[in-house]
């Protein structure tokens, strides 16, 4: 730890010296922050400003992350120097790799090594380090601890147990005069988020991850059909029909207003639901996602967020300095404690302050080990095609398709075509 800090100090000092040699005046670097952690991002950037003396101009990204792709695309196509530091989703790494600066010469090797190697390895493309991990996400199951205790229920281990428990608690609460309560809310809108949710149901039931790592389309199998049928039958029984158009925020609104027993979402919901003044403080439990059958792995969808530096930035050194601070131990610790964002710096998983604030982090480390990646690496440029075909078909199924097996078969044929669309 001490060595780490020393290295950081030395690096920072060297960098400061080189900057002051070039120009003594304060520069302005601009960065993109995602909508959900905007305040934390702002706070981290302000902290960096204080020590570095440079200004940070923050651009808020669209709430639906997919919508940022065209914005980035335009900036890149114009070789724009307007933005220096970029927020990059794990599934975009392949898409944007040619427009991101190689961080290997800009970030000292020991700083890179402080992060989970699985996260940094994913950002090493064609011999370049295109981004640094910012926080690590995986699908988690949030539940109303108080309600499960009230009815003497254990947190469910399998999806079938969850279905039964959700139904029982929901019906009992409704009978007790809370007509608006639902058993389970999640993300069923026709968008990338549904790919994550559905991949979790299928992978945790032994149905694979749509496409195997060696490129074979595996989605058409009985276990996948079974998992999707189970999800279809949730609609109207334990999940409101509205989930068919819920994204993360819409489903969180239901859970945090106290109208849902179970809720699948990303770790940030721990921060929002346990924030001061929130209605559910002390009433929420969190666990790894259930499995299809005992022996299967809990399969939260892996979603790591990265920060990268634009290749077209004219202030790459200062931008890299900001990036190093934002992904560094200190800022990640602040984000973990104040926002529940899971660090990628391994040392923080043994940090007392962090563990006190996010008690599930010790468990989350294993959830990350069992989590599954969307098939973005094996599909490369064709990932968005595959994902759209997948979530469209899943949406059709959960909207009430009768012939689940037939829809899956048709989906598999389309995905076969999608993966061959470009080389």
């Amino acid at each position: 730890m001490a060595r780490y800090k020393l290295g950081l100090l030395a690096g920072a000092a060297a960098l400061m010296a080189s900057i002051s040699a070039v120009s003594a005046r304060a520069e302005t670097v601009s960065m993109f922050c995602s909508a959900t952690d905007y305040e934390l991002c702002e706070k981290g950037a302000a902290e960096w400003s204080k020590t570095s003396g440079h200004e940070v101009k923050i651009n808020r990204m669209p709430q639906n992350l997919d919508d940022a792709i065209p914005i980035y695309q335009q900036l890149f196509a114009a070789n724009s120097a307007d933005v220096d530091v970029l927020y990059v989703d794990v599934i975009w790494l392949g898409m944007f790799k040619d427009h991101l600066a190689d961080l290997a010469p800009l970030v000292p090797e020991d700083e890179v090594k402080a992060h989970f190697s699985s996260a940094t390895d994913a950002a090493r493309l064609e011999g370049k380090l295109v981004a640094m991990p910012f926080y690590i996400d995986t699908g988690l199951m949030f539940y109303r601890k108080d309600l499960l205790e009230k009815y003497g229920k254990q947190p469910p281990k399998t999806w079938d147990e969850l279905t039964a428990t959700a139904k029982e608690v929901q019906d009992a609460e409704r009978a007790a005069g809370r007509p608006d309560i639902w058993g389970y809310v999640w993300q069923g809108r026709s968008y990338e988020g549904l790919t994550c949710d559905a991949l979790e149901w299928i992978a945790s039931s032994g149905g694979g991850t749509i496409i195997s790592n060696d490129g074979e389309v595996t989605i058409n199998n009985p276990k996948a059909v079974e998992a999707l049928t189970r999800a279809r039958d949730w609609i109207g029984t334990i999940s409101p029909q509205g989930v068919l158009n819920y994204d993360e925020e819409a489903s969180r609104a239901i859970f945090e207003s106290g109208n849902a027993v179970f809720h699948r979402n990303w770790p940030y919901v721990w921060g929002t639901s346990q924030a001061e003044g929130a209605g559910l403080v002390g009433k929420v439990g969190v666990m790894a996602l259930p499995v299809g059958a005992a022996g299967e792995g809990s399969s939260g969808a892996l979603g790591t967020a990265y920060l990268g530096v634009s290749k077209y930035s004219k202030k790459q050194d200062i931008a890299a300095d900001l990036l190093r601070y934002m992904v560094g131990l200190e800022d990640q610790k602040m984000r973990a404690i104040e926002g529940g964002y899971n660090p990628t710096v391994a040392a923080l998983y043994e940090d007392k302050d962090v563990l006190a604030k996010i008690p599930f982090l010790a468990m989350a480390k294993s959830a990350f080990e069992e989590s599954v990646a969307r098939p973005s690496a094996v599909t490369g440029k064709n990932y968005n095609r595959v994902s759209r075909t997948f979530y469209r078909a899943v949406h059709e199924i959960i909207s009430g398709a009768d012939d689940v097996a037939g829809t899956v078969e048709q989906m598999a044929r389309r995905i076969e075509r999608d993966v061959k669309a470009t080389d």
Partner: protein
Amino acid sequence: MTPTDRARRAETRVAWLFVAPLVVILLAVAIWPLGRTVFFAFTDAYLDNPSSYEFVGFANFVTVWEDATFWRAVRNTLVFTVVSVGIETMLGLAIALLLHRAFFGRGLVRAAILIPWAMPMVVSTRIWDWMLNDQFGLINKVLVELGIIAKGIAWTADPSLLLGVVIFIDVWVTTPFMVLLILAGLQLIPEELYEAAEVSGVPHWKRFWSITLPLVAPAIGVAMLFRTLDALRMFDLSYVLAANNANTMTMSIYARDQLIGFQDLGVGSAASTWVFLIIGLIAIVIVGLLRLDRPHH
């Protein structure tokens, strides 16, 4: 060469001079991008590096033509256009007739009905999205309170309701536009015609069919043309309300998916070109129909 000829030629030169900036701007912002799109439709270019490509003939056009998803989008767009423009025209005409009468506070009412039209579509869609929310929405609350329904309806999630909701929001937003254009047409009808009809004892409904409707028809036609072309390229409303939902996907969303989502500049441009051709064809048909009407008056 007579002096008048010379004067006329000088005039033509000046006219061209005045028009030149417009021509340049049109070339820059309309013709050039359109030409680029058509050009890329014949290549296999990708968005991350548009400068490297090969020509592939009509392959991209065939890809789009054979894609069932595209035809689904075309169908959605046509249903949306016909139904929404139809309702907007009827409502627009009815409201314009009401507003045409002089009454106290008419100016205020006219300004007030323009509010939905003045709001950005994304904002209106968001407002309705929340009002129609199945759990917290105002609409469901009112309907439940009134005893019309027992439980909130998932307006924006039920596949059978979704396109209807999109049409409803569009009608809410753009009916004022129709009202305004039709009202302008109504005000051009000379009052003497009505006076003469009244003197001759022509009944009210006949005055409407024989005087008002034929004379306001050109205004309605132009308004419908504008609205139809607008509706055919609709993107924002569907996308904000239901993202990539197959039930509400329009032709523009399809093209955007190919172009931005999949980065496929070739197929995306071919899809955009198809959209352009389809809208162009419909525009020509409508303009033709309007011309056919002309000999009547």
